[in-house]
Structures are given as C-alpha cells and as structure tokens.
C-alpha cells in the first residue's frame, strides 16, 4: 500500500525541500541550485505516472511491438527539459553574477536593490 504511493511521496518530499531551500537561502547561487532540485521532483512524478509493472523501455530495437513497455510520452516530456534546464540555470547564474556586480553581495537578504 505504502509502496504504491512511495514515488509520489518522494516527488512531494523533493519538491518541498527544494522550496525550503529557496525560502531560507542566504546565497543566490545556492538558491539557483535549490530551484534545480525542486524541478527534479517533476521528473520523479512524471516517471512514476508513466511506470507500468513488468514494462521495459519503450525501444523496439530488440523487443517486438506490443511487448509491455512504460509510457514513452512522459519520458519525451522529461528528456527535453533535462537539457533545457541546464541552459536556464546558466541564465539564472549569469543573473547572479550581474547582481553581485551591481549590489556587491549574493545574499538575497542584503539585496536592497531588489526591494520594491
């Protein structure tokens, strides 16, 4: 019973810890890494939804069509994101570099310039 929902729980667990890191962070670089952790929870969730007991990878190079496989759709959603996330993180980190240049600090608490 517990095992049936374990993966969903892991997704929520990773998501919440990522969020906790973002909220309590004292360093913008650390905050960007927390965002990346938070995002990986979506991978766990998607893979858990697409999983099928007894299913193998949806590659029909060496198995006949019709063999039980896991859902390829959620995997397709994921794999583009893994790569795109890398460049988005590069963009965020470049913003951190510029923030440090302008404000002289990477502590979000001290970034008075960001306050409205």
């Amino acid at each position, binding site marked *: 019973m517990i095992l049936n929902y374990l993966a969903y729980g892991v997704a*929520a667990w990773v998501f919440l810890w990522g969020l906790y890191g973002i909220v309590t962070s004292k360093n913008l670089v650390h905050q960007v890494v927390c965002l990346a952790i938070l995002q990986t929870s979506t991978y766990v969730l998607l893979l858990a939804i697409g999983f099928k*007991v007894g299913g193998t990878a949806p590659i029909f190079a060496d198995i006949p069509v019709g063999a039980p496989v896991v859902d390829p*759709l959620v995997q*397709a959603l994921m794999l583009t994101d893994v*790569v*795109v996330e890398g*460049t988005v993180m590069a963009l965020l980190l470049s913003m951190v570099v510029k923030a440090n240049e302008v404000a002289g600090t990477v502590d979000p608490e001290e970034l008075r310039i960001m306050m409205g």
Partner: protein
Amino acid sequence: MSGRTRTILFLISAAGLAAVFAWGLRNLPPMGDYRGPYGYVLTRVAVYERHATDTVNAINYDYRGFDTLGEEFILFASVLGVLLLFRPGGREDKSKKRVQLEDALPVSDTLRVGMQAMAATMIVFGVYIAVHGQLTPGGGFQGGVILATVPLVVYLSGNVKTFEAIVSNPLTTLAECGGAGGYGIIGLLALLGGAHFLTNFVPLGKTGDVFSSGTIAVISVTVGIEVAGGFLVLMQSYLREIIEERLQEGR
C-alpha cells in the same frame, strides 16, 4: 520580513501544500498501474507509422514535434539571455588589452594523454548518440550535451588555450543559430509540399537503418547541433566574463 517569520510562514504553507498533495493522491492509480491511452497507442503505432524503433524520439521529433520546437527555443532564448547579460563593452574600460590565457601548470602525462584519448572517444560517442536517436536511446539533446562536454575535458587536461580556441570559434554561434533555424526550416519545407507544418515528408526508409524514420533523424541531428552550439556559446560567455573580471581587478 525577517528570516524567522518567513520560515514559519513557509512551514505553515508547506504543511498545507503537503496536505493538498496527499489529498490529490487519493484517486490516483497506484504506481505501476498505467492507464493513460496515449502511451499505449503510440508504442503500438510508432514503429509502423514512422519506422522509428525509439518511441520516445518518435514522439519528441514527430508526434510532439511542434512542442519540442518550443522547448528548443526556450534553450535558444536562455542562451541569448546569457549573451545579453554578459555582452562585452558593458563596462567603462575601453582601452583593455587582449588577455593572453596561459596554459595551466603542466599536468601529469598520464592525465594529459588519458584526457586526449577520452576527448576523441567522446566526440565519436556524441555523434553516434545524436545520429542513432531514432533507433536506440539517445538523440539530439543527449548527443549535443556529450559533444559540448568535450572542450571541458580539454580544459581539464591543462590545454586552456585549446579550450579557448574551441569555445571562441565563430562556428559555435553558427551551430547554435543554424541548429535552431534548421528545425523550423524542416518544418516549413513540409508546407511547400502542401502538407502540415512539421509533417514527416522525408522517405521513411527501412526500420532499423540509420537513414530511416524520415524527418525524425534529420531533426534529431539539427537539435544535436543546436544543443552543442548553445552550450559552447554559454562556456564562451562565461569565460569572457571571467577574463573581464580579472582585467577589472587589475590582475
């Protein structure tokens, strides 16, 4: 808001979020009991319709091709954003000299030769992964990332000048733009034949061949070029930023 208040506020809302999440789980099927219709249908038709044995890539570059085009442009836009933020000449010193990057202290021969052999292997592996996406796990996104890590291996082997030469090559920008544009152009070419945007118009070939699955293989390669180019452009921008920083500090 003080850090303490914020943490308390977060803990309360996180508890609420966790409760809503748990409530949302009630009617989900248990893990492993997959019921979605799309994955089931696609795994049965993709091989016959598109002659691609890797269903994931058949979805990515064909059935869901328009969506992947959007994803690719997120990548493109973030690279542009980094270029914009790190644009040269944004600072006051106009009279700066060209810095000469020095090769790092000589690393041990074992490391150097090992890294060089590894770089060569990785280039072959990256190209292999990018062009076999329609057959086996892999494809443009993965192959492109492998290719983009090759300069880092060169960097680790102590050849800083070679690293700079690779990432500063104008071809990287061309690869980034050409790859992104190529995807769109392949989609538009289908319109010329009177078909819909991104229709698979290239002959499908024999299932299991490298030259099979029509546009899936072609788009996979363009994506590989774009991803590799994009990451190289990123490395170049960061490298240039570091150099400018050092100049500012007068080192």
